[in-house]
């Protein structure tokens, strides 16, 4: 909807329109700011973290929050607050990269599969079935056993088992969109396949993808934590939040601050991504009408 001022017609560009929609939703805007803040904190870690992430202090182990250590210290006496700031780098990178990889690959497969139909569709979907049949945990264990432990291999593993889900999702939307009047009309006037897919179908799949993407960034951080739970996540002494949470669970009831702070960090980050995703979806959605 464009506004009309008396005497003039003010037309907003699609981007401006999108921005206006987005900033209307205050929750999403707030979430976006939180994420920007987290990213900034991660980038500026060397300057804003009060301590180093790895220097031990055996005289000061497992001490609770205090003025010198805002979030307390861990089993080696390391400052938890600093480790959380440094850990933001790892967790955010894992979240972004693994999901981006899985999403791109999955979208390509899903679009091709849904649009082409027939044998190619069956082939791609059966391939996805095979991948889905491998529980993520097994795949992660296998990747780690073959490539060795380490956070980058975890990223690959998470990307691989996110991919078939995106593919299935996009394929479903593609199938539905193929039948719409909008697309049929475009076809009938001779729009070629590639532009058809890119400009007419792809945007229609985006709402579903964006919703899932935002959920997925959060859950890939949680997946990395679950892998730490079985010993395969980031390796010591990396301050990855999931690893901190997993190591700290031995001390539940005795030194709760070990789990509370990384847990809150994960929770806030994942929450922010999800709320942001909602807002983006709504704003984008209006644009597409």
């Amino acid at each position: 909807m464009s506004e009309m001022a008396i005497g003039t017609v003010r037309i907003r560009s699609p981007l401006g329109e999108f921005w206006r929609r987005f900033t209307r939703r205050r929750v999403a805007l707030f979430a976006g700011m939180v994420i920007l803040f987290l990213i900034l904190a991660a980038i500026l870690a060397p300057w804003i973290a009060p301590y180093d992430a790895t220097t031990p202090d055996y005289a000061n182990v497992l001490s609770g929050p205090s003025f010198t250590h805002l979030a307390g210290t861990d089993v080696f006496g390391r400052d938890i607050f600093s480790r959380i700031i440094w850990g933001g780098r790892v967790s955010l990178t894992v979240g972004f990269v693994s999901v981006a990889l899985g999403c791109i690959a999955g979208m390509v497969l899903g679009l091709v599969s849904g649009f082409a139909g027939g044998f190619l569709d069956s082939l791609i979907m059966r391939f996805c079935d095979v991948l889905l049949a491998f529980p993520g945990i097994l795949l992660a264990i296998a990747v780690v056993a073959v490539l060795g432990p380490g956070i980058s291999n975890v990223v690959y593993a998470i990307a691989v088992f996110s991919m078939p889900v995106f593919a299935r999702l996009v394929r479903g939307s593609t199938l539905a969109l193929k039948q719409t009047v909008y697309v049929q009309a475009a076809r009938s006037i001779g729009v070629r396949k590639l532009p058809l897919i890119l400009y007419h179908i792809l945007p229609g799949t985006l709402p579903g993808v964006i919703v899932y993407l935002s959920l997925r960034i959060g859950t890939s951080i949680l997946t990395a934590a679950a892998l730490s739970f079985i010993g395969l996540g980031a390796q010591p002494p990396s301050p990855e939040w999931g690893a901190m949470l997993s190591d700290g669970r031995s001390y539940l009831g005795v030194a709760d601050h070990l789990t509370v702070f990384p847990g809150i960090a994960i929770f806030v980050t994942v929450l922010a991504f999800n709320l942001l995703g909602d807002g983006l979806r709504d704003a984008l959605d209006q644009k597409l009408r």
Partner: protein
Amino acid sequence: MLAFILRRLAGTVLVLLTVSVFVFGFVRLLPGDPARLVAGPDATAEDVAAVRADLGLEGPVWRQYVRYIGQTLRGDLGRSAKTRQPVIAEIGARFMPTLWLTLVAMGWSTLFGLAVGVLSGVKRGRWEDQTAMVLAVSGVSFPSFWLGLLLIDLFSVRLGWLPTGGDDDWRSFVLPSITLGAGVAAVVARFTRSAFVEVAGEDYVRTARAKGVPERGVIWKHALRNALIPVVTMIGLEFGFLLGGSIVVETVFSWPGLGRLLVDSVSFRDYPVIQAEILLFSTEFVLINLVVDVLYAVVNPEIRLR
């Protein structure tokens, strides 16, 4: 429709065969010697060789595969390397607990998620929507093992209402299904809401409303059907994932399920069990996806399936 289903079932066999070859080679690529792992630290080299013979791991891989296919077709899935029990018994003993837990968790979380999603979609933008979505999102933002341990601490240790684990009676289902279902409910709620919001502005909805069609009719007949497709997809996928068992929930609640079995058998390189479990999962997924694809056509008859 029938022809479609039959063709898909035929394709299933091909998928399963591919999966079996893939996993057969795949587990043997994992570094580590099952015979040594089973024989244990106190065994000598001759003990290990004896175990290796017992496990049928001698000879070239292709011959092992042929033997494996022959046995499988006869219904013999072999014996677990670690426990020496028939694999069918091992998996069977854990399949029912996993299935029950999956059904309970999916049941409450799908219903709950749909209800919340519809509420949010209809009241879009208002405070009900905002709070519902934040709650839904919280459900999926908790690391599940943390949630599980906190639930045990509250409901078992402090209040004494529920058991800490195992699968003895109906009470044991409560905490694990909450932990498992929290994530699913959130996903279903958000996708349902998204479906609603997406179609609320559709031209045909506005037209129907303008024509005076009652609100409920508008929502169901016109808005929901297309938009439900992603929801149906996600429910199917989540069901499939949960049927594979959740290693985290099963560990925290000592639930005798397939997730723990898989992780343990990978640690032990228990090839027969790994192979059988993957075969089971892929069969489940293929069947679920078939059902989902059929549902697409039911929900929106315009989707033509080939």
